[in-house]
């Protein structure tokens, strides 16, 4: 089992716990951030292999956090977790420069596989 490091940025503690537990169970190492600012800081400090970023966050939002992360971390794939399964949100996520998106509510069964696919996107291993 791989031990890729996943940074999860999510302000809702229960949803954060859910993602953390599912990914940990699947064998990933999970770093938690509950705000965009935390996410930016941890992205620099911990150098994760993948970042799962909620779009709606208190303080700076997901798109802004991504912009700040990209100033130093050019390679790491950053995937948006969108709350609304709507076309324009998806488009907005891509326009903001995210490498992909996961729709909420997340599928516990599918999430580990999705994360694996996104990790390949970064070309790392």
């Amino acid at each position: 089992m791989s031990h890729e490091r996943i940074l999860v940025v999510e302000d809702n503690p229960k949803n954060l716990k859910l993602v953390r537990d599912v990914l940990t169970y699947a064998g990933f190492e999970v770093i938690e951030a509950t705000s965009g600012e935390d996410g930016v800081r941890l992205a620099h400090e911990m150098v994760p292999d993948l970042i799962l970023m909620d779009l709606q966050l208190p303080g700076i939002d997901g798109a802004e956090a991504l912009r700040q992360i990209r100033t130093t971390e050019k390679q790491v794939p950053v995937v948006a977790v969108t709350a609304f399964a709507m076309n324009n949100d998806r488009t907005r996520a891509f326009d903001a420069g995210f490498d992909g998106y996961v729709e909420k509510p997340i599928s516990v069964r599918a999430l580990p596989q999705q994360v694996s696919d996104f990790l390949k996107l970064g070309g790392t291993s």
Partner: protein
Amino acid sequence: MAGGSTPRPGRESVSVEEHEQLRRDLDALRDQFEAADEVLSALGRSAADPEGVLTAIVESARRLCRSDAAHLYLLQDGVYELIMSSGLSDEAITFVAEHPMPLDRDTLIGRVGLDRRTQQIPDVLADPEYGYDLQQIAGYRTLMGAPMLVDDQVVGALNVWRTEVQPFDAREMAIVTAFAGQAAMAVHGVTLVQELEARSAELAKNVERLEALREVGEAVSSSLDVDHVLSTIAMHAVALSGTDGGSIMEYADRDRCFMVRSVYRTDATVVERLRSIRIELDETLVGRAARERRPIAVVDLDAVPLDPHLQVLHDDGWRSLAAVPMLREDQIVGCLVVRRKRTGDFTEETLDLLETFASQSALALLNARLFRELEQQSVELELASRHKSEFLASMSHELRTPLNAVLGFSEVLLEQMFGDINERQEEYLRDIHGSGQHLLELLNEILDLSKVEAGRMDLEYSSFDLHSLLELAASMLRERAALHGIDLGIETADDVGSVYSDELRLKQVLLNLMTNAVKFTGDGGSVKVRAVREGSEILITVTDTGIGVPEADRERIFESFQQGGRGSSREEGTGLGLTLSRRLVELLGGHMWLESEVGRGSTFGFSMPAADREAVGRPSDGASVSACGEVVVIEDDRPSLDLFSAYLSGAALEVTTARDGPSGLAAVRRTLPDAVLLDIRLPGIDGWAVLKELKAEPQTRDIPVIVVSIVDDRARGVAMGAAAYLVKPVGREELLTALTSVGAPVHTPAGSSEHGVES
């Protein structure tokens, strides 16, 4: 005379006296003839010179009747008016003017008019009935008069008098009678001409008024620019009332005041002053006109107490005015004021006319108010609708977040990631998860429906293979259908092919209809999905062998749960699915219907416009020249597919998508696109196999294929005939540059497209 007979000498022996008499008679006759001739010749010129005729008549009557004065009267409104006289002193003329004679027995002409015959009073002082004081001034004694008759109507009288008592003889009475007749004819001719002139003048005036009213009416009905309408009205009101200026004031019920809305020929400084004062309903003349619902005219502003409004006008030199209330259904709308720089009254007719203008002004003002209110309302509605949409969007997000945890954790437990659970626990967990799913669907549908209703549903059109979409939807339901032994089948007619629509929304509709069909079909039944082409439409039907829908419920089931009553036995469902599906189908340019037989099953069908076959499928001559360019994208990953579609649509390229190898090959063969984007990791046959097949077939061999993959195997791709090889993630610029380099007609907003890329 003695003997009672006149001594008659023989013819030959004429006395001197008799001779004298004969000579006088002859002279009189000659005079009479000459006078008549004069009158007749004057009559000949009468139309041009009525006064000449009357002068001749009066002069001749006086002379021929050997009288001291002769005068001619015309009857006006039952009273005699002196028109022409001869031998009357100025004093007498003034007296007659000041003391008009009515048709009564006090005067001779009164009697002449009443009796309609020529008569005389031998001595007025001996007549007890005679009572006209002119006698004391003029001193006449014997009076004679003849009526002027036209069509048996008395129009005047001719009158002669002598200051001595000397009654007129029969010949003189005949002369006056004849002259009166001629005078009547002359006057009548004049009257006719005058009437004619007056009538044509009136006619011209009426035409002018109608013209003005038409113009005003047109302005009122055609223009929403109330100021333009009001100034048109003010202008015409002033012109037609013969005044020098005017204003239109609007009444505000809130503060019981009038406000100047429009003026005509009024100094800007006056307008400014009028706007600076309070023209109150209870304190002003215009207010009074409005309160009393009638026009009020002020003949002389110097002679009346001045309210603030009148004071301003008076200061500016206005001297008379008419204030006409503007009313609508008895409600005060405003006041129309016309004014003059001199004193003067307003005729009834003018006031009537002004009332017409006032009512037009009222209409214009009310129209404008109504329009303003409607505008305001629509702004408020727009705002409310936006608030509603924002509320729903945020509610949807807020509810989804906790739902995420409910669904996620129940799923974690069901997956038994952290230990075993017993059967009962699993059942309950499935209930929790199912209910959460249900709630989520409900949320999505409410949000979608509200977007449709608010006209904010954004559709994303693209070309895609309909059969692939039907297969995809069916694959999502197969498990559930199999659970109940339901046969779920799909039939797509050969000529259906690609459609141009919103794939996501179409899938939503299909899933809704197919889910319902499976839900309401008993174990071992069947659900058939068919797609056929019919003219310019594609018809898709979902037929089940379920319980059917009673006639009475067929319309109701399309209504959302808020509107219709609850059905008898409802399976779980949101109650919004069909409503939403129908609205989506309509949005996509089709319609939905239902055929059903209770106990036998139902067929839900809907139509959608077929894509233009000329644009989608070309004859296989290899010369594919579409106006905007076309690209087939074969990619199984939905996010990447969406992303590429967005990039390509933005570059004016038509996109046909396929999610697996076989349907991708079919799409390329059918559409013969300008380029193909090909993913390598595909379910079923992979990208390498697709590339190999495309390059093996003559009709597709020359279509450039760009491989887009996370697998970096450039050498193999080029070796197999790929025109370009891109490694994911691929940016927009990179993708479009590659497309340009392989010859696809890419329309980029700016920048060179000659940028080379290794191929």
